[in-house]
């Protein structure tokens, strides 16, 4: 009898729900029963309410069970041994689950399916097809990426092809590819999932970027809050190096490309590209004034492509299937798919990759299932701590860069955090200012001072101290921060603050005080 092949995700979200203990218990139980079992620590499928979601290979393909707790291990293993038999936790064929069936997985095509530490598995699932095409026609890479309409997935939405062209055209003795994996926005975890579930796709994407612009060295800057991602990414780079697809002559060509993982140190502002470059160079993460652009003078003063994990991880499939294939998805100027992250107070949280154009309401209510507390949704914050709060009245907004900008919001890194009706929006506005004050790098005054004044002003408003006058001060302060800050930290903090004021004015009325009767 061949060994039972069981998948237990090693993704941090699954591990945080007990996946490590489950993996150990399954292994122990199988060995006690003298049943040969091979346990693969895959990435997550992105259905996080079902984590730990175990899968077994059966004669009918992979069958999933979840969420598995320690007390279920014996009975789930019984069902697995019975060729994917019945169990109250049986989810069935994962791809048939409506949450996955409704998705279009391009960037996340392999995540949760392959063994992240197996290059063989990666190649068996279309891996390195993009690189092969890129090596066959290096001069055509930038045109292909430009034609695909791919825009920066980190939040700014800048066309990737144009950024690469600028670096390619720059003359220098050395160029760099930097991957921004400092995914600090609350409500986002797509970068982490890719690095933990399909790290080779990022390596392949960065290698293609290197070939396109003539860079021989790349860095993946991962935040220190992601120890699992750091571990998997580092292992994958080692494996790729040993297999000769990173190094002096990659994949038998004359092209050189090397990669190194670097770990951040707990500074949110280092997600801003110039601050990240400072940090990589070994300095305080202080934002640089632009120009010069990183594309001209980036890391160590050399021309540098700096892209988000998702942008780079989408490059291989574009190279493999062609720009037209990718561009065919999406709406308006937002082409392709977006891995949307559903989080906060939501019944069905997880990763949902879909073409641009789906409405916010569909995401929150139809796919996310509303609040797990069973209470009505009051607000959703889209795009991290610097994103606007949307009320249900704006749920018809389609998910695309321009549509969100039109509603004074942003899609950012596509994280959606849902709040029920117990949330106090004045408190959220205060938190946005407080967070900006804690994380400000201190270089520019609007962000450094404005954020602290913002906290004080919100406090005055909710304490009933000249509320009308202070609301005007708050609006004025936000205006100064928005247009006077050097980077998005100070510049975008007004989004959550002003959206809270605009859409939830009642929360900013002073709390009714009990009359002092005596």
């Amino acid at each position, binding site marked *: 009898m061949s060994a039972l092949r069981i998948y237990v995700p090693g993704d*941090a979200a699954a591990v945080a729900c007990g996946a490590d203990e489950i993996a150990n218990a399954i292994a122990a139980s199988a060995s006690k029963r003298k049943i040969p079992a091979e346990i693969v620590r895959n990435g997550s499928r992105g259905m996080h309410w079902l984590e730990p979601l175990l899968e077994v290979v059966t004669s009918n393909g992979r069958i999933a069970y979840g969420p598995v707790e320690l007390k279920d291990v014996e009975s789930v293993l019984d069902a697995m041994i019975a060729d994917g038999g019945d169990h109250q936790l049986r989810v069935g064929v994962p791809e048939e689950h409506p949450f996955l069936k409704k998705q279009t997985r391009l960037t996340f095509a392999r995540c949760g399916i392959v063994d992240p530490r197996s290059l063989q598995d990666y190649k068996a699932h279309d891996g390195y097809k993009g690189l092969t095409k890129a090596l066959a026609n290096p001069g055509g890479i930038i045109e292909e990426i430009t034609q695909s309409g791919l825009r920066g997935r980190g939040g700014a939405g800048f066309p990737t092809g144009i950024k690469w062209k600028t670096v390619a055209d720059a003359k220098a003795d050395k160029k760099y590819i930097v991957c921004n994996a400092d995914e600090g926005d*609350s409500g*986002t*975890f797509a970068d982490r999932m890719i690095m933990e579930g399909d790290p080779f796709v990022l390596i392949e994407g960065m290698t293609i970027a290197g070939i396109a612009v003539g860079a021989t060295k790349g860095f993946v800057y991962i935040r220190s809050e992601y120890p699992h991602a750091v571990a998997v990414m580092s292992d994958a780079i080692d494996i790729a190096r040993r297999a000769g697809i990173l190094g002096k002559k990659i994949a038998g060509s004359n092209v050189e490309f090397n990669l190194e993982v670097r770990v951040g140190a*707990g500074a949110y502002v280092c997600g801003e590209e110039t601050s990240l470059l400072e940090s*990589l160079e070994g300095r305080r993460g202080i934002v640089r004034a632009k120009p010069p652009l990183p594309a001209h003078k980036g890391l160590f003063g050399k021309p540098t492509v700096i892209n988000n994990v998702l942008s780079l991880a989408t490059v291989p499939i574009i190279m493999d299937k062609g720009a037209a294939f990718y561009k065919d998805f999406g709406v308006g100027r937002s082409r392709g798919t977006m891995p949307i992250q559903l989080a*906060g107070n939501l019944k069905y949280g997880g990763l949902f990759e879909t073409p641009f154009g789906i409405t916010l309401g569909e995401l929150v209510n139809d796919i996310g299932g509303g609040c797990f507390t069973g209470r009505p949704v009051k607000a959703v914050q889209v795009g991290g701590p610097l994103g606007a709060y949307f009320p249900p009245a704006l749920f018809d907004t389609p998910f695309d860069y321009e549509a969100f900008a039109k509603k004074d919001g942003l899609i950012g890194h596509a*994280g959606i*955090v849902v709040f029920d009706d117990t949330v106090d929006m004045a408190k959220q506005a205060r938190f946005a200012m407080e967070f900006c004050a804690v994380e400000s790098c201190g270089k520019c005054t609007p962000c450094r001072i404005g954020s602290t004044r913002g906290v004080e002003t919100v406090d005055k408003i909710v304490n009933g101290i000249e509320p009308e006058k202070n609301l005007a001060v708050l609006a004025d302060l936000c205006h100064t921060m928005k247009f006077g800050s050097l980077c998005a930290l100070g510049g975008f903090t007004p989004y959550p603050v002003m959206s809270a004021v605009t859409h939830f004015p009642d929360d900013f009325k002073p709390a009714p005080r009990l009359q002092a009767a005596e």
Partner: protein
Amino acid sequence: MPSYEPWSAERTAQIIGEHQGLEGPLLPLLHALQETFGYIDQAAEPIIAEALNISRAEVHGVVTFYHDFRSAPAGRHVLKLCRAESCQAAGGDALVARAESRLGIPLGNTTADGRITVEPVYCLGLCSVSPSAMIDGKVVARLDAKKLDSLLAEVDR
């Protein structure tokens, strides 16, 4: 529970030597020092400055800029509670208040007996299974009062 070596200048110099060849060595170097000693001793700063040919002020500036680097050892256990929006939406604030009252210290402090340090963290990327925490490097999701109490009970032993 992590264990650390007592700070020594020799060991510091050795770790510096291991990292000096990197492009932009300071952050990896500081991480290595903290992993070894549990914190960055101020006496290490002039040694680093000398080796990297930068000023002591630059080294001190970097050590103090980043939230991760400690200037003094933490408690024997470190509990990080996520305070970011997704965890707030899922009831995280109440858990922070509970931890603070159980331990008798506000976030960002260590108990007087040096048993535990409790700190805020702004997002562990576990937002779909909020609220979340990290204890001695181990991630915990779907935190509730019961789970929090058992985490605190574990470090009591």
